[in-house]
């Protein structure tokens, strides 16, 4: 838990940065005119407003702000990692191999993680999603992926 910046100032800077990116890209679309709005008209105006809003937030942050606290990044990394495993390996390896890893990795993000219930959950969810999503609802969740002959 280490504070390095106010949350309002950080939020303001992020909005300004995003606004600048949207503006910079939006300038290429063709602004058009008031009579015939080009594809760039609305994005440019919105990006401008976003930058203004970001500036207001940043300026206001000098009056009163609370420090950013960096949350424990372990849980976040594990949950997002589990989803990345899903996105990367679901098609090549198939649900039977991928889902248990996804469940175990996600479950390990909790402080209450225990191997036994987590393994049971992994097996249960893999089986249930196969039954419900693939067999009952007919979704394209292949049990065995393309890399291993599915």
């Amino acid at each position, binding site marked *: 838990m280490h504070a390095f910046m106010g*949350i*309002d100032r*950080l*939020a303001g800077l992020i*909005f300004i940065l*995003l606004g600048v990116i*949207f503006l910079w*890209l*939006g300038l290429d*679309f*063709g602004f058009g*005119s*008031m*009579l*015939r*709005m*080009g*594809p760039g008209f*609305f*994005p440019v105006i*919105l*990006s401008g*407003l*976003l930058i203004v*809003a*970001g500036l*207001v*937030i940043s300026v206001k942050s000098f009056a009163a702000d609370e420090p*950013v606290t960096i*949350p424990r990044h372990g*849980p*976040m990394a594990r*949950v*997002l990692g*589990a*989803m*990345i495993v*899903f*996105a990367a390996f*679901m*098609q090549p390896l198939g649900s039977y191999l991928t889902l248990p890893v*996804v*469940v175990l990795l*996600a*479950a390990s*993000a*909790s*402080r*209450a*993680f225990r191997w036994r*219930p*987590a393994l049971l*959950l992994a097996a249960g*969810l893999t089986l249930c*999603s196969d039954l419900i*999503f693939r067999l009952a*609802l007919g*979704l*394209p*969740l292949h049990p065995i992926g393309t890399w291993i002959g599915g």
Partner: protein
Amino acid sequence: MELLSHLALGFETALTPLNLFYCFAGVLIGTLIGVLPGLGPAPTVAMLLPLSFGLPPVSAFIMLSGIFYGAQYGGSTTAILINTPGESSSVVTALDGYQMARKGRAGEALAMAAMGSFVAGTIATFIIALLAPPLARAALLFGPAEYFSLMILGIIAAIALAHGSIVKAIAMAILGLLFGLVGTDVTSGVQRYTFGMLDLYDGITIVALAMGLFSIAEVLRNLDDPSEQEVAAAQITGLLAGLARFREALGSILRGTAIGSVLGILPGGGATLSSFASYAIEKKISREPEKFGSGVLQGLAGPESANNAGAQTSFIPMLTLGLPSNPVMALMIGALMIHGIQPGPNVISEQPALFWGLIVSMWIGNAMLVVLNLPLVGLWVRLLTFPYHLLFPTIIVITCIGVFSFSNSMFDVWMLIIFGAAGYCFVKLRCEPAPMLLGFILGPMMEEHLRRALLLSRGNAMVLIERPISAAMLLLAALLLIAPALSIVRRRREEIFAEES
């Protein structure tokens, strides 16, 4: 009577075995998921949205609405039994409801919440049936300028009545509008913000954005919370005693319903504000205001009815104007568009079966909720004890599968991951994600209306303030932003909180 023939059409649609089944399924699944701690209506609807895409539009909507009010209801159960409001509108329910449960009157509280919700739902359903058609007819007179201003008003109202910093909420809404523009521009065919990626040509998938911002970010936030704890549910006794005391609370229920119905129609009003307002009023007119917060029946029945009525009538702007007043309605609009129905005043005349079937199904669904909930409450209690450390991996898996199967595209899962991480960062920076979703839905529509308005006025931007209705709406939006009334609302809410804590 035109209304009667419309209602007849509604009953005809809603009472087909198929639609009855989907209504029941929606209510059941909604309650089931909504009861789980930490899952409010918005993530529930987002998570279950893909389930409805294979269905015919009418059935899909009946089910989605069922999921919505089922989740709303389930949230109250959670609030009463374990003091963990799944969403802001249940915060008030928890004040007196949880105190009742702690005093061994959990059954009474649950029965009262069910009856209150049912009465409120029934009355609000009639209000929709009476109000929506004339409102839609009035909206048909709107030109593009009026629509543009109406959408500005909708966004501003949603921002002004939400909690937290207004400027941040505005920035989030603008960011949402910008994300809504990603994809091929319909008029010129220019690719905007697609970086040449084929998957972005049709824009960002709403399911990926909504689930990332709500479901995934919510999971990450809950994991962050050091109080991530297992819960012990209270014992349920006295369901019948609750039914017997119905007469005592009837006044509160009706007052709550009236407040909720009015505030629900306002864009951005919705469930939260109405439950706060109802609680304040009940406390004010009570003979024993000092007892509020220690388990007063009226303090539960009023807000619970208000939040249900507000949730119900928030369908009115969505169905008649295509204007979402809360994240759930934004998702509903997204679902309408996915089914190829253009949201707006034409929905009622072009899709009468959808509209009237939906309304009648709401009433049937509310009745089902009562029947379902009172006897099954024991089951819900057991669900409450489902530990979060097993629940959240389940949410992750279902969300990923839902997003993937929605368009059979892994690209959307990557988007889900990005928006989940971004949503979590925004929450940490005290930026509410709800305005962003509203903006995302409204972005393309606002651009189109603005373009047409400017074309019709020969490029004169003053058209927005020269047309009286449009000017009035913009004025109202401006007032909402600056009015001192706002600070009164804010202070009011803080007072309520301060007194209870």
